[in-house]
Every structure is written in structure tokens, then in C-alpha cells.
């Protein structure tokens, strides 16, 4: 599932972008150091393969819904983690640009969710130890299925965290994650089975291709500490960026602090279901609602930044009138251009 720009705050989106870009630089360096120039065409063509294979839908047995190949783990198995990460990033970039899956800002999140987990967690720590150096179809199946499931669960959790900490959507963490995880458990199972089948197929028909392509070096290549370290760095960057944004807009910070503390001044409706939900959200969203800029309430349009629950009818009406006028202007511009291009 692809994260969308519309649900992201710039702080979260930006932090994920930085983390992703950093990983891309790191992996590019690694692949270059690898000095295996076979990998360059291989990455390109396998990326195209994933792209094409994803475009064919199949029915998932007993559910009637349709699925498609995920690809992250498959690429890691065929290319090794670093090259695979770059390839996934490329596939997602093409999808973002041509099919508007996600968006420019969300690209960081999507690459992170669909790339880091399969390549740097699922592959080295799950698939590889299980499949081993001399894989058998059974080992491949177990490893691939488990790897895909766990990779996707982490990815889904990533989507939830990013959405919730962006605070554009009101979905509470608990509710959201309790929907996302089971759905992605099913998807992960399917993806794992397909990955396993495809890898076994290659392994049976042309074993030398797997040897050729796979990162033959054992686990030592990427150590647990390194991965945890990298993720830690990403987290620190995220947190740092967040607090930077937060401190640069004290109003927003103040606002969310008030919200967390449930301060009286805010006069939030603290009764009934809203209250419980609000409390639930406070409890569960460990990254509270940071807002990017709420500095100048006048400029923001008081009603919309909603320094809660100020219902200033004056500002609201002028906002409405102005908004309608902007819309009308937009439409007429479009219309004018159309006319001109027709007469031209």
C-alpha cells in the first residue's frame, strides 16, 4: 500500500526522504565498490520485470480478491540487499511519476517501507538463515514466505506510523494498525508464496543463475549492529527534524502540548465518545500532532488553522467568499485556455 502526499506532514515526509536518500547513497556506494558490473544491467532489467509482473493481477485462492507480486524480497534474493534496494527505489520512482502512486514527498516513505524492511531485515535475518547456502525448495518456501510476511508487516506498520505522526488523518493508531496488519498479513502470505514459487522455479531450472546473481557472501556482509545502527540514525534524523520543525513553530508545539495535557483552555469537547477517542489517540500516537506553521493566525486564516475551537464567523465567511472566487477564477482560466487552443 502506497503512502500518499496528501496524508503526510512535511516533517515526517522530509525526514523519511532524508533517511531514504541516505540509504540510496550508501547502497550506491556499496554497489560501486562491489565492482560487479554485471549487476547494472541486471538491476535495470529486473526492475522492469518487477514492474511488468506487478501489472498482471491474479486471484487469491478462496478470497476472490486479486493480488500482485510485491518484489522487494524477490529482488533481494536475486541481487543482494544493496542493489535490490536501489532497484526497488527505481521501481517506486517510476510508479510515482507515471502512475501517481504516492507522490513526490511520499516517495521517501514508500521507498523506506517497501525497500528497507525487505532488503535489510527480511532478507538477511529471515530468508538467508532459513534458506541457507544450499537451499531446498522447502527451505526457500519457508524463508521466502516468512520473510515476505514480516517485511510487509513492518512496511504496513511504517505506513501507519507515518500517517498517524503526520496528523493529517484522524485515524487513531490502534484502530488503523489493527486494520492494516491483518490485511497485510494476508497480502504478505500471498507475496511470500509467489516469491517462493518463482525462486524455486529459477533454482530448479537454472541454478547457476541464482549463484550468479545472488550475493554469495554470507551474513557477515551486513551485520545486525549495522542495520540497527542505520535505523537508529534514521530515527534520530526523524526525531531531530521533527523537533526542529516543532521548535521553529512554537505555536504548533504549544498547541499539541496543550492537546496532550488536555489543558482546559482548549475547551476541547471532553465528553462521550470523542473524549475516549481523543484520549485513545493521545495515548497511542507517540508522535503527537505537530503542525508545520501556525505562526501567524491572521495570515493562516483563523478559522482554518482552527486555533480550536474558535469559530469566527467573519473570517470564515470571507474565507468562503474568497475561496469560491478563486475556484471560479481557476475554472474560467481553464475555460479560456481551452477556447484559445480550439480557435488556434
Amino acid at each position, binding site marked *: 500500500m502506497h503512502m500518499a502526499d*496528501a496524508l503526510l506532514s512535511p516533517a515526517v515526509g522530509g525526514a523519511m526522504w532524508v533517511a531514504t536518500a541516505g540509504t540510496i547513497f550508501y547502497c550506491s556506494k556499496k554497489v560501486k565498490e562491489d565492482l560487479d558490473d554485471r549487476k547494472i544491467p541486471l538491476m*535495470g532489467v*529486473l526492475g522492469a520485470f518487477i*514492474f511488468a509482473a506487478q501489472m498482471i493481477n491474479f486471484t487469491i485462492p478462496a478470497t476472490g480478491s486479486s493480488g500482485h507480486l510485491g518484489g522487494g524480497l524477490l529482488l533481494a534474493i536475486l541481487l543482494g540487499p544493496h542493489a535490490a534496494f536501489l*532497484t526497488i527505489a*527505481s521501481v517506486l*520512482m517510476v510508479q510515482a511519476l507515471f502512475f501517481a502512486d504516492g507522490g513526490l514527498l511520499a516517495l521517501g516513505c514508500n521507498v523506506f517501507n517497501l525497500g528497507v524492511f525487505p532488503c535489510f531485515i527480511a532478507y538477511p535475518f529471515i530468508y538467508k538463515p532459513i534458506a541457507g547456502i544450499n537451499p531446498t525448495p522447502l527451505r526457500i518456501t519457508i524463508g521466502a514466505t516468512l520473510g515476505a510476511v514480516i517485511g510487509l508487516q513492518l512496511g504496513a506498520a511504517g505506513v501507519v506510523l507515518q500517517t498517524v505522526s503526520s496528523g493529517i488523518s484522524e485515524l487513531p493508531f490502534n484502530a488503523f494498525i489493527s486494520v492494516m496488519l491483518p490485511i497485510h498479513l494476508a497480502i504478505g502470505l500471498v507475496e511470500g508464496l509467489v516469491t517462493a514459487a518463482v525462486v524455486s522455479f529459477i533454482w530448479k531450472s537454472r541454478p547457476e*543463475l541464482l549463484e550468479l546473481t545472488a550475493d554469495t557472501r554470507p551474513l557477515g556482509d551486513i551485520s545486525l549492529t549495522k542495520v540497527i545502527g542505520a535505523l537508529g540514525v534514521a530515527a534520530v534524523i526523524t526525531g531531530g527534524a521533527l523537533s526542529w520543525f516543532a521548535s521553529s513553530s512554537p505555536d504548533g508545539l504549544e498547541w499539541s502540548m496543550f492537546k496532550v495535557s488536555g489543558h482546559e483552555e482548549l475547551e476541547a469537547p471532553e465528553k462521550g465518545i470523542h473524549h475516549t477517542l481523543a484520549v485513545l489517540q493521545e495515548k497511542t500516537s507517540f508522535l503527537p500532532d505537530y503542525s508545520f506553521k501556525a505562526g501567524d493566525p491572521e495570515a493562516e486564516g483563523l478559522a482554518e488553522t482552527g486555533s480550536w475551537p474558535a469559530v469566527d464567523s467573519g473570517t470564515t*465567511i470571507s474565507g468562503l467568499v474568497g475561496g469560491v*472566487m478563486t475556484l471560479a477564477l481557476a475554472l474560467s482560466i481553464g475555460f479560456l485556455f481551452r477556447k484559445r487552443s480550439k480557435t488556434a
Partner: protein
Amino acid sequence: MAKIDTAFFDLTKLEEMANNDTVIHRIDPRVKVLVASIFVLCVVSFHKYTISAILPFGLFLIIVINLAEIPTPFLLKKIVLVSPFAIMVGIFNPWFDQQPIMVLGAITITGGWVSFVSILLRFCLCVGAVLVLIASTGFNTICFAMVKLGMPKIFAVQLLMLYRYIFVLLEEGLRMYQAMTLRTFDGRAIAMRIYMHLAGQLLLRTLDRAQRIHLAMLCRGFDGNIRVCQTLRMAKLDLFFFAVCFAILLLMRCYNIPAMFGRLITGIT
């Protein structure tokens, strides 16, 4: 029909648009990439209840779309096509956030509805921005621009190669899919069991192809480095365009122009 047909269509269609020649097409790709990024960043940085202040960005986009002569129905169709996730997540807002935000006569509008509309608006603008970028620039040019902006070369090279072979592999996949459909009769999507074989077969062919391509590259002196003579020249006009767009975007971000305008008209302060 399968998605694979439409994918082919989308790619070729957008690529074709990118071959047009308009004011927007002629701008340096780096400028376009940067402006698109700033645009998206501005749009998503508004507070979740913002609607009117975002509208001018739509205006900006519509002007660019028209200058670039991109067919609007095509864009709208694509936007609608990808909207489900944003809508699915956003639709919960009215439910969870029932805080009244404004009262219009008898109707009380809650924060949830306002933020839902805001999400949809952001969504259309962000998706629109991406599509306009690609339709007015083309994929390869964007790649070159990104390299100039600091993207690692090795990443760019395989990205270009991926893009090149998408067309080849989509066609190959499409033909396999056709061959398979012709021997199935219930018209549903294909069974997972069959898909596995199909994908395995395609992968096998892909791996063989990768070997042949590598050979072709070696035959022409490939040594791990890709050299491309591609020159991008930043003209004064490009810088000017960038400055203007930047200023406009910043202005729209900092001031709620519709509200100011509305205040001016209605006289309410």
C-alpha cells in the same frame, strides 16, 4: 482487461506529451523538479483544516497545465484512478473529529469534514503536480536533472535502464498474458498457481536477457562506468522562471489570499 494494457498506454501517452514543445516543456528540467517539489511541500505544510488558502495552488497548477497543453480529462482520469487510498484513510476524519468548526445557518460543519475535504484537495494537487512534471519533461530528462541535483550516478544509470526495458518487458508480459487468456474461458483474473509459472517463466527470460545486455555493453567497452554526454544548460530565463515560481509559491503559502480577497469584498474584518 488487464492492468498491463493500461500501463503500456499510460507510459506511452505521458512520454508522448513530454515530446511536445511548449513554454513549460522548454524550461530546464532541474527548475521543474525543484518547483514541483516546493509546490508539494507548500501544499502539504498547511494545517489540516486549511481549504481556502490551498486553493490558489490549484490556480497555479491549472495555469501550468494549460501552458503545457496537457489534456485535462486525461489528468482527471488518472487522479481519480489513484485516489482510493487517500479517500479510504481520509474518510475516517469526519467520524473521529466531530468538533464543530463553523455554523452556516442550520448546518454545522465539523472539523472532520473540513479536514477530509482538505485531504482530497491536497491529494489532487500533489498528484497533479507529479503528472504535470512528467508530462512536461519526460522520464529520461528528469533522471538527468536529478543527477545534476546530486543523485548517485549508478542509481541513475540503472533507473534509465529500467525505464528502457519496461517497454520491452511489458510487451513480453502482455503477450504471455494474451496467450494464457486465450486458453482460459471464464474471463476472471488468472489463478495464482498459473501466475507463479507465468512470472517464473518471465523471470527466466529476463535473467537471460540481462546476460545478453551485459555482453552487449562489454562489447562496447563498458567498464562499470556509464558515460553520457548530456548537456543541460541553465539559461537566464530558467533562473527567472524559478525565481518567479518560488516567489509566487511562497506568497501563496504565507498569505491566505482568498481570505484576504474575501475580506476585501465582504468588508468584514
